[in-house]
């Protein structure tokens, strides 16, 4: 009897050991912190910048609130705010210093392949991201104003911006920025220029003192916002 219990004990020890090992193997944490110091710092800096932006926004809104509280004539302040918001949203024509980017086809001598009909949308998106990183305030692609809801799509092998074709070359992208010279240099040395050349397209930037951007013509489709009625 005692012998039997010893055998059982031996077996259960082995089972216990196997269960414990298996449990450890299964419950191994899968996603560990994989970022190194530099990446963590980068993330921290990005978060700080975000915080600063939000703080600035808050400050601006407080100022508007203060103005509204101080002035008797609320309508004027409201009008200013509306104009400012319309300008931000791209509903007004704007002009100012900026750069003009010209995208044209650039065939090398031994080019083999079909005709290039338009700029691929991923390149346009990439370019816009790069422009925004460089501090562009307003962008227009081929007389189409780029706004927050602008869609850059491809349909039938052609690229659509705001629902209209980008069908001719050279394609002009007008950008308004505070510092045209530095943006010009940044764009001429940017990675997107290289990527454009892979698609047999050339990207040329010219800084100008005055560039005019058209207003956004189509209706803004606002889906998730509703005007608040006072007192409701």
């Amino acid at each position, binding site marked *: 009897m005692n012998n039997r219990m010893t055998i059982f004990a031996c*077996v259960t020890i082995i089972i216990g050991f196997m269960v414990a090992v298996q449990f450890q193997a299964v419950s191994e944490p899968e996603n560990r912190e994989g970022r190194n110091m530099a990446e963590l710092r980068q993330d921290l800096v990005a978060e700080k910048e975000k915080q600063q932006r939000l703080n600035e926004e808050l400050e601006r809104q407080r100022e508007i609130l203060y103005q509204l509280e101080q002035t008797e004539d609320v309508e004027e302040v409201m009008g200013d705010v509306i104009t400012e918001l319309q300008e931000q949203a791209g509903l007004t024509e704007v002009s100012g210093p900026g750069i003009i980017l010209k995208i044209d086809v650039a065939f090398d001598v031994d080019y083999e392949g079909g005709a290039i009909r338009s700029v691929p949308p991923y390149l346009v998106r990439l370019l816009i991201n790069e422009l925004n990183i460089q501090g562009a305030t307003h962008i227009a692609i081929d007389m189409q104003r780029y706004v927050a809801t602008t869609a850059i799509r491809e349909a039938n092998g052609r690229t659509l911006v705001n629902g209209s074709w980008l069908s001719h070359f050279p394609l002009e992208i007008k950008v308004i920025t505070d510092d045209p010279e530095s943006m010009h240099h940044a764009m001429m040395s940017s990675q997107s220029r290289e990527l454009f050349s892979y698609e047999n397209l050339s990207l040329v930037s010219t800084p100008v003192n005055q560039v005019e951007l058209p207003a956004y013509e189509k209706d803004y489709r606002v889906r998730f916002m509703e005007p608040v009625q006072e007192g409701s």
Partner: protein
Amino acid sequence: MWLPLLALIIGILFGFLTDFQISDEYSSYLSIAVLAALDTLVGGIRAHLEKTFDDKVFITGFFTNIFLAASLAFLGVHLGVDLYLAAVFAFGVRLFHNIAIIRRIFLVKWTKKSDSTTKD
């Protein structure tokens, strides 16, 4: 009775404390080995209760079951067929069957005991 339970706890502690690591691809073998071991253990308990326990059968059954289950899983991996499911199924069915028999044996013992106490 308490010795096997104590041994189980010691085994688990030992497993956790030694920090023994196995790689992911072997964990399926280990899981099937655990299942085979549990099956043998429950079978042993049943045999013990039915008074048909044999040391040699138990020990050899324990090791061959583990080994065969793991090798079946291994073969399955190399053939591209989930053969370990066969082992899981066989052991699972037998495990439940044995547990049911053990439960019945205990139930019979318990009812006999309570009958005798009520008669007294």
